[in-house]
């Protein structure tokens, strides 16, 4: 993207999505060349806007100044020590990991059989069914949380980590089913049918052939639903009782004013989530190709 590229090259790059030799040749005048530079400048600004909060979070978590992210007043680990030494945050972290693990496991346990059923039963309503199932992901979560709160209260289930687990599974399980269904759709059915022909029962073939082959998607679904639950604030806030999750604890800290400890926690969570997502991607890419 150096500025010295002749106008023609810039214009040709514009439609680089085309097919190699047959790439369309566009009119590449001076105006077009300028237009390209403007768009590239815009890209830089857009990415700067997108990354500003992350940059500021990391910056202020290491800045010695208590009240501002800039100007820079020197490097410190102080806010991280504060974060790690805060018992409330540690309890929140433990609760969040507990709930997210349970949500991930439940989602996969509910999602895998569901996905298998949808891909193998060959019913005409499967796409409609899938749409209805994943609708909790599109419904505003404030409504989901309120409905569950009223439900739990009326039925007599006290607010606790248990209710957070149930609530998060409502939007996580369909997502797991969607991911695993994607994998099952690309899986060749001959493996499974070979197992049947060799005398394996339907369930045994499912467990010993189909499940191992879809393991990458299952692990990917687990990690993604884990991350979603781990990060979720609003529903957890509404349906949790005295045992709060990490985001709810962060919310409480934010209400008591500016505190770079929040930036330190935010940075730790960011690194944690990004690691999980990268692992999820690697896991999904690998595994036997079918």
């Amino acid at each position, binding site marked *: 993207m150096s500025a010295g590229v002749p106008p023609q090259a810039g214009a040709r*790059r514009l*439609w*680089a*999505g*085309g097919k190699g030799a047959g790439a*369309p040749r*566009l*009119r590449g*005048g001076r105006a*077009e060349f300028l237009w390209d530079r403007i*768009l*590239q400048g*815009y*890209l830089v600004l*857009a*990415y700067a*806007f*997108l*990354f*500003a*909060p*992350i940059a*500021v*979070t990391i910056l202020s978590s290491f800045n010695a100044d208590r*009240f*501002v*992210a800039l100007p820079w007043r020197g490097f410190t680990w102080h806010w991280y020590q504060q974060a790690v030494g805060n018992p409330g945050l540690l309890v929140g972290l433990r609760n969040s990991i507990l709930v997210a693990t349970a949500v991930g496991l439940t989602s996969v346990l509910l999602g895998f*059989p*569901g996905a298998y*059923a949808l891909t*193998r*039963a*060959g019913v005409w309503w499967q796409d409609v069914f899938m*749409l209805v*199932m*994943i609708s909790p992901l599109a419904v*505003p979560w*404030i*409504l989901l949380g*309120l409905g569950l709160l*009223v*439900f739990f*209260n009326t039925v007599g289930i006290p607010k606790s980590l248990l209710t957070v687990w149930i609530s998060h*599974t*409502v939007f996580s*399980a369909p997502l797991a089913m969607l991911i695993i269904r*994607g994998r099952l759709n690309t899986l060749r059915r001959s493996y499974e049918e070979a197992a049947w022909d060799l005398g394996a029962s*339907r369930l045994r073939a499912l467990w010993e052939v189909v499940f191992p082959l879809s393991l990458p998607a299952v692990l990917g679904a687990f990690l993604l639903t884990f991350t979603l639950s781990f*990060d979720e*604030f609003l529903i957890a806030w*509404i349906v949790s009782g005295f045992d709060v999750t990490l985001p709810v604890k*962060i919310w409480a800290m934010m209400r008591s004013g*500016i505190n770079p400890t*929040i*930036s330190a926690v*935010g940075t730790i*969570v*960011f690194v944690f*989530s*990004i690691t999980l997502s990268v692992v999820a991607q690697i896991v999904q890419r690998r595994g036997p190709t079918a």
Partner: protein
Amino acid sequence: MILQRRPAPARRERWALWLLLPITSWQVLFYLTPAVFLLMASFWVMREYRLTPAWTLQNYRVFFQEFMYLKAYVLSLGFATSTVLLTVLVAYPFAYALVFCVPPRVRLVALVAVIAPFWTNYLVRGYAWQTILANNGVLNYLLLRLGVISAPLDVLYTLTAARIGLVHFLLAIMTLILYSTLEGIDKSLLEAAADLGANRLRTFTEVIFPLGSGGLVAGSMFTFVLAFADFVSPAVLGGQAQRVFPQLVVDAVQWTVNWPQASAFAVVMVVTILGTIAIFGRWMRFAGFGRGIGQ
């Protein structure tokens, strides 16, 4: 993603439908039933901090008769509309540049970078915007140092700040939807336009924009619903003077503990969202949704 093409089913395994039972039961019990409870509770009352069944329209009457709630509702509609417009204005050139200016080699990296902000917690992102937009924040510091302004801007704790935080959240979603639509436009059409002598601008207004309108409408609908129902950005970045509707709903849930009242507000929100989807749906058919997608 949902409407994937699948290989023709060799054998139909009807017995497998039993395996749908666990997840279906879960969703019926913890998704559909709570939805019904929400609707019922909107007619109930709270007595001595307990939900008490009653059949009254009182909770709805409060919405229509108390000015505070109607005002917040109208404010929310305006807030969501302006936020979506702003998001479109920022996202469209972004998606356009991603499709037409970024070489395919680095396309994947560029797209991953668009969703990277999602790996930070939404609350922490709000907190970061606080430290950016505050009177002694990063933005004012930089602008003062550069001599652009002489006195710090009062942005934090206004709806403008809330809008900035929300646009940041919605930008990635809108950009990806627009990207996939623009990316799907048949390149030979662009070639034809060029052969016929159209310049960039004309190619955009007469080929790209009409073909991409389906994605634009779909993205606007999705982001409108999210903007209308968002609580975190207005609560963290907005001020006390102008509070949006979801904030009043959360007040009724968490502070005054009047759940029937909150449920009635929630029903109003659901009706609003359904109305939005209906309006956008008509518009989508008008815009010929799907024409620009697919080869």
